[in-house]
């Protein structure tokens, strides 16, 4: 008697739970809840806080929020460094991603072919993506160092850099050939190119590292797209006698366009919001702010300078672009679902 009295409530409890969990209206929100909490805590809350900071006089030393309207935005727009940072952010993003798209297509084509050592090459191509960005940029910092750059050393040894007369002139068979070709000291007569000290070269260096950093992801995405092209389409093209370029422009690229758009948008997100590269490589956006970007300027102004409100206002300028990119990505995803 007592046993059955204990069993009945347990069974009833299980049934009740099963009843609720079987209802889609309950289970769905329940499963989504962790994601929603995550997004609210780590994306929504900081975003709201950033907006509040941007219209307040908050500083690092006094984080109380006194409303100042659009003062911080006006100050940001009136600031020459902000305008340079905005221009650089857009330029670095677009130029680097256009280069990435070009190179990723080439790399994906190469890596989709069969050849010895393909796995090793794929591993090497992926390496920059798997390396922590700060570590990778430190490597580039040493590679492009104004004094100890190994690239400069190689150029000097080849006679491409350094004086062509005097005791510092380097003489060896390679440099002799280089000079005979009229390329002696083509990179200057100084002992270093000064990659990170001259505005144009520093900008080029930042672009180079952006490309190096985001190329692997784009390549892998395009590689996946290439392998997804139905074999019968390729076979039909071969039977019809379509050559490499005809297949490339009439089959591969059109079929790859949606996936290319995904890779492009991911690249934009990573490049547009990056501050690590100018922060480490060019010592906080130097020389003379020529590599300053919105993310690094927001950090320098808001955190290092202590003006949280102004820093937040600068960072808010990233939002419209990011929101636009996110909307495009969602649209693409919906199209893919529909198709």
């Amino acid at each position: 008697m007592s046993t059955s009295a204990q069993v009945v409530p347990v069974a009833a409890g299980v049934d009740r739970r099963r009843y609720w969990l079987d209802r889609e209206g309950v289970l769905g929100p329940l499963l989504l809840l962790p994601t929603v909490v995550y997004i609210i805590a780590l994306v929504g809350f900081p975003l709201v806080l950033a907006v509040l900071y941007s219209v307040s006089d908050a500083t690092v030393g006094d984080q109380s929020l006194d409303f100042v309207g659009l003062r911080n935005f006006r100050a940001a727009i009136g600031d020459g460094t902000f305008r340079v940072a905005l221009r650089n952010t857009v330029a670095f993003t677009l130029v680097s991603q256009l280069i990435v798209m070009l190179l990723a297509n080439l790399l994906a084509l190469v890596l989709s072919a069969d050849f010895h050592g393909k796995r090793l090459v794929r591993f090497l191509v992926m390496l920059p993506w798997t390396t922590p960005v700060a570590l990778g940029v430190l490597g580039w910092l040493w590679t492009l160092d104004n004094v100890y750059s190994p690239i400069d050393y190689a150029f000097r040894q080849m006679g491409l850099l350094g004086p062509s007369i005097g005791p510092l002139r380097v003489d060896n068979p390679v440099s002799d050939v280089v000079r005979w070709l009229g390329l002696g000291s083509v990179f200057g007569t100084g002992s270093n190119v000064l990659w990170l000290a001259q505005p144009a070269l520093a900008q080029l260096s930042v672009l180079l590292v952006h490309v190096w950093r985001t190329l692997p992801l784009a390549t892998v995405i395009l590689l996946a797209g290439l392998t997804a092209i139905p074999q019968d389409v390729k076979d039909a093209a071969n039977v019809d006698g379509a050559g490499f370029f005809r297949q490339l422009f009439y089959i591969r690229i059109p079929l790859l366009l949606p996936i290319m758009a995904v890779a492009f948008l991911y690249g934009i997100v990573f490049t547009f919001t990056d501050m690590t590269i100018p922060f480490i490589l060019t010592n906080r956006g130097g020389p003379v702010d020529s590599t300053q970007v919105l993310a690094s300027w927001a950090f320098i102004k808001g955190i290092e300078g202590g003006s949280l409100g102004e820093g937040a206002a600068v960072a808010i300028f990233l939002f419209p672009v990011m929101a636009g990119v996110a909307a495009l990505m969602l649209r693409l995803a919906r199209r893919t679902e529909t198709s």
Partner: protein
Amino acid sequence: MREDELRRMATRPATRRTLLKGAGAAGLAAALSPISRAAAGTGTATLVQTAPTRNISGTRLNILLWSHFVPRHDVWYDQFVAEWGQANGVETKVDHINTADVPTAIAAELGAGEGHDMIEHLASLAQYEKSMLDLTDVVEEANRRHGPQLEMAKRNSFNPTTNAYFGFCHGFAPDPGNYRRSLWEVVGMPNGPTSWDELRAGGAQIKAEQGVQMGLGMSNEVDSRMAAQTAMWAFGAAIQDANENVTINSPETIAAVEYMAALFKEAMTPEVFGWNAASNNQLLVAGRASYILNSISAYRTAQKDQAETGEDIYFTAPIVGPAGPSGALAHGHAVFIDMIPQHSPNADTAKEFLLHLVANYAQATEQSEVYNFPAWPTTVPMLQQEGGWLDVDPYGSVPPDKLAVLKTANEWTTNLGHPGPANAALGEIFNLPLLPNMMARAAQGQQTAQESVAQAEQEVNEIFAKWRAEGLIGGGQ
């Protein structure tokens, strides 16, 4: 009295009698210690235990400290803190981080409302005043024990508008000119340049004839900011006046910018636009700079790593510019300022430690290889006295009096924001690339000196207006 007795005494709650005993013992210990031998350049400074005036036993002290440029200092400091903690029943912990990361760490801790009990940076950070404790009581106590604090140290840590000490400045590192004697001998200046005119003429000649450049940075780093400020003072220019009104757009600033642009073209290379804080040190140690503005840390590195170059490095006091001797000034290359956040539950412990640190500043100076100069000069008498550490360098300079030029450092070292105080606006300006960019834009030919100064003025005005609205700076007088 023996050290262990001093320590025992230090752990007891303080009374007037114990305080007097402590002070007497400290004096005796100082008199009998090997410091007197150190004055001749051979000895070591002895620990002086200070009896706490508050009951701090059972508390904790977490310190965030910038990584000192002389590694020996940090080894000593950690041990010094631990020993003090043991003697007073305080659990201690010291974290060292790169100096460039200190403002970020402060921002994070103030945002979180928790973190270290005491934070030390190498520059004035008045912009954090509202979240820091007023340390007037500790400064006044230190003044009572050791005599007046250096005016420069006070002006780097005291806000006359709010009448509060937002920080506790216990010392500084002088910022002399570092020059290579062998290079300057060739151009007829064996004692280095004495004026900005000589600097330009000699630097240009050295670069042209000996292929060695000069190293005054124009980049987003602290040494470049100091070099720009030093040049401005020499030309009679300043960011603000004594009443905290913006004065940067002046004929004197324009002249300074024009001078730096010319100096760059004649005596430097574009390398200076891409420097970090260590770059001018590296250039000097590598034997590739004729003159830099820096503390003695670069020289100490050269002494150890490039002895020949080290022997060739000599120092000059700030050189004279159009403003005359009164403008021949320098920042403290590093100004050691401790701040206690309001969220610290161990503020009393931190204050007691600061008093202990000041009482033992001879150790700090010695263990930093004579890098740290005291804000209370009486605490390290062996530094500047005749035959003291600056006359006979305990770390083996050849000649032994190579550092003697620093004996006048207290006279020519001034505060951030001179002729005004180091305020919140200056703190922000000094964390931004504003001044080096002003110089660099003209040097690169992006703008004329007038245009560049006008842009800097606009940026400075906005920063001043913001902090004035916060009630942290004066002005308008």
